[in-house]
């Protein structure tokens, strides 16, 4: 397809080549098909979930006894820095971009993303910065050791005086990850705004698209601030400037503003798509329309807006003046309102429904439960007096992991199971899935629930040794962490064996509503091609007598015949 009124060379949007090789090799090539890129993202990121998990298990192995005996304390510093970085930049962002790639075009009936080549470039940056990050383990001085937030003045120390050092590679990797995310965000937002199926007004869009749109909007607004901060930090570290060096007139706290202006909203970048997944999964397996569709949709942008004005609550104990503390405490509290709207809508959706407890539903129910708990500790941390008391203790670690793992990663697993039949064409094994859920849920609860107590008692984080009075909580947490490691075995077994030999999936195995379920499993390269259904209603009309698209029978038959 060529067009006469735009220049194809700046941001070229070629179509995937029809008849491109339909074998495993396409997953290892520069392919522009969003569905291939989506699977590339998800497979790569799950690999790094294992890497990050292994780093975490070494740390939990160290922390099972009070003294620092298993690894050297400076190695421990490198471990938690890399664990955080790998999990966020190499697991969570890529896995969610993978889901975006699979779900957004199919859910809105677009043939592909708006800029397929940019999309592929965004993915192939991931292995590049992964290499930089992993490579830093093998250079003199080892990887970065200043935590995932990389605060100066610690992060701009260069004790060995090597020009190439772990911190520098870390900064380059983060900057590249930022470029990749911005490429992705431009693509996702443009696709959602401009390529929806006929009749699909914004208020008929699936909620996953609403939440992904909100999340990517945060990326576009927040990420450049972190990039700016990272550039300045890199200059301080390598080129002798003094932006964050007090002795040269700089201000280390300014970096914290840059960092948290992005990195607080970044949590919402990760949690918003999971809210979308909750909305899709709960309605599907409860067989009920979503309660308050419009409120849930608009609450996403309420969260986007509020998430950008709360960042100083990470800085209550770094010399922030009182008026600012009160102001940001207030904005932090208000975030509970749009989030609460969503939680109540899900509970109301589940209420009185006839629940089918499939693996994705179990993961979402577990994730919702954990999210509510994490929300409560989040409000606690948002209050200035409690935050000053428990700041930089394991209470923060526990709260953060309750959000990131116990809610978000559980939601991601739910999505992987829920859409697995659609994009691979095979069913997964329900029994193995349930074993995975049980191990994960018990493991994550055992891992992070006890750490709240350790934190309230004052156990500081990021230290390899601790006072023996905290031993019991740490033993429990370590058992939980190893259980999570074990939980990855049924998951990997299930994914690999189902994709290779699982029973063939029908186009709509769950009886779900949505454009993606009107496509064959797996969908063809250009989804609906020229024949896109006209959308009549939002995709949550479970049990209602309203058609989702015009001529639904035709599309169902076509998908089954394909």
């Amino acid at each position, binding site marked *: *397809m060529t*067009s*006469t*009124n*735009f*220049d194809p*060379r*700046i*941001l070229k*949007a070629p179509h995937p080549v029809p008849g491109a090789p339909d074998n495993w090799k396409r997953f290892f090539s520069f392919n522009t098909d969003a569905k291939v890129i989506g699977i590339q993202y998800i497979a790569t990121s799950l690999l790094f979930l294992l890497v990050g998990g292994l780093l975490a298990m070494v740390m939990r192995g160290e922390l099972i006894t009070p003294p620092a005996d298993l690894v050297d304390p400076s190695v421990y510093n490198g471990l938690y820095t890399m664990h955080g970085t790998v999990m966020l930049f190499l697991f969570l962002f890529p896995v969610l971009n993978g889901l975006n790639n699979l779900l957004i075009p199919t859910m809105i*009936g*677009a*043939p592909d993303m*708006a*800029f397929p080549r940019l999309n592929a470039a965004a993915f192939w940056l991931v292995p590049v910065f992964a290499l930089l990050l992993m490579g830093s383990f093998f250079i003199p001085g080892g990887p970065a050791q200043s935590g995932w937030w990389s605060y100066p003045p610690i992060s701009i120390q260069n004790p060995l005086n090597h020009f190439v050092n772990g911190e520098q590679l870390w900064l380059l990797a983060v900057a590249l990850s930022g470029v990749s995310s*911005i490429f992705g*965000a*431009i*693509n996702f*937002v*443009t696709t959602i*705004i*401009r*390529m*929806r*199926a*006929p*009749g*699909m*007004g*914004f*208020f*008929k869009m699936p909620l996953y698209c609403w939440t992904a749109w909100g999340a990517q909007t945060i990326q*576009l*607004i927040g*990420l*450049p*601030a972190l*990039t*700016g*901060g990272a*550039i*300045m930090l890199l*200059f301080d570290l390598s*080129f*002798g*400037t*003094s*932006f964050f060096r007090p002795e*040269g*007139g*700089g*201000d280390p706290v*300014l970096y914290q503003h*840059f960092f948290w*202006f992005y990195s607080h909203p970044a949590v919402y970048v990760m949690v918003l798509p999971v809210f979308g997944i909750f909305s899709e999964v709960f309605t599907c397996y409860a067989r009920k329309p979503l309660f308050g569709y*419009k409120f849930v949709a608009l609450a996403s942008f309420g969260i986007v807006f509020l998430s950008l004005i709360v960042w100083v609550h990470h800085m209550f104990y770094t010399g922030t003046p009182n008026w600012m503390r009160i102001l940001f405490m207030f904005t932090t509290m208000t975030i509970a309102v749009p989030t609460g709207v969503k939680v109540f809508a899900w509970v109301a959706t589940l209420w009185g429904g006839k629940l089918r407890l499939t693996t994705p539903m179990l993961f979402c129910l577990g994730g919702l439960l954990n999210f509510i708990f994490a929300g409560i500790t989040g409000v606690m941390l948002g209050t200035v007096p409690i935050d000053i008391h428990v700041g930089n203790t394991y209470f923060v670690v526990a709260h953060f992991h309750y959000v990131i793992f116990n809610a978000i990663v559980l939601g991601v697993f739910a999505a992987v199971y829920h859409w697995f039949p659609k994009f691979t064409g095979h069913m997964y094994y329900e029994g193995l899935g349930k074993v995975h859920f049980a191990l994960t849920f018990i493991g994550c609860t055992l891992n992070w629930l006890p750490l709240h107590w350790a934190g309230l008692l004052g156990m500081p984080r990021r230290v390899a040794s601790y006072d023996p009075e905290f031993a019991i909580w740490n033993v429990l947490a370590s058992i939980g962490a190893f259980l999570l490691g074990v939980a990855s075995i049924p998951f990997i077994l299930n994914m690999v064996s189902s994709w290779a030999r699982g029973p063939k999936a029908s186009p709509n195995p769950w009886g779900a509503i949505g454009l993606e379920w009107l496509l064959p499993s797996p969908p063809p390269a250009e989804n609906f091609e020229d024949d*896109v259904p006209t959308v009549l*209603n*939002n995709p949550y009309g479970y049990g209602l007598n309203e058609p989702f698209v015009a001529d639904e029978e035709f599309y169902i038959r076509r998908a089954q015949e394909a």
Partner: protein
Amino acid sequence: MTSLDSSSQLNHTPGHIKHSGHNLTGFVIFLCSESIIFLAFFAGFTLFKITSPEWLPPGVEGLEVRMPLINTIVLVSSSFVAYFAERYLHKGNLWGFRIVWFITMLMGAYFVYGQYVEWSSLEFGLGSGVFGGTFYLLTGFHGLHVITGIGLMGLMLFHSFRPGNYEKGDMGVTAVSLFWHFVDVIWIILFVLIYVWQRTN
């Protein structure tokens, strides 16, 4: 469902699905995002300037304004020149477009040359306190954008010689001149912050 749905349906035409007019949408989104990096730098500059106990490095009195002012005038007027080039293209006057577009490029190149002359005459470096750092970071990062802009304009000029490319105007030219105006606006803010607002407290 309700009235809001029907209104958004009106705005939506099925033609969007296959048409690639979304290139400009994507580019505008990119520019908005890019402007936030500059915003972050400007915020940092302002904060440093207000709070830093020693702003100018020892031996430096202030910045010379005359040369940068000429540079500013050249860059700002080049934005108007770019606009006229675009007008020529829309009227179908391809040679008019090429010549005026090339003049824009020359004006951009003059700006970069002016920056080079200024940089080489300065007595402070990147490491001269927070003032030197922010000065070179801001002007350098902006200069990088100017050079990118000139490169993109060159690309558009080159493509205009390929037959059949520019018959109905070109989205790429619109995007590049948008980029040029963006670079221009950033410079005006930068000029005011660095050169006009020199008085220290």
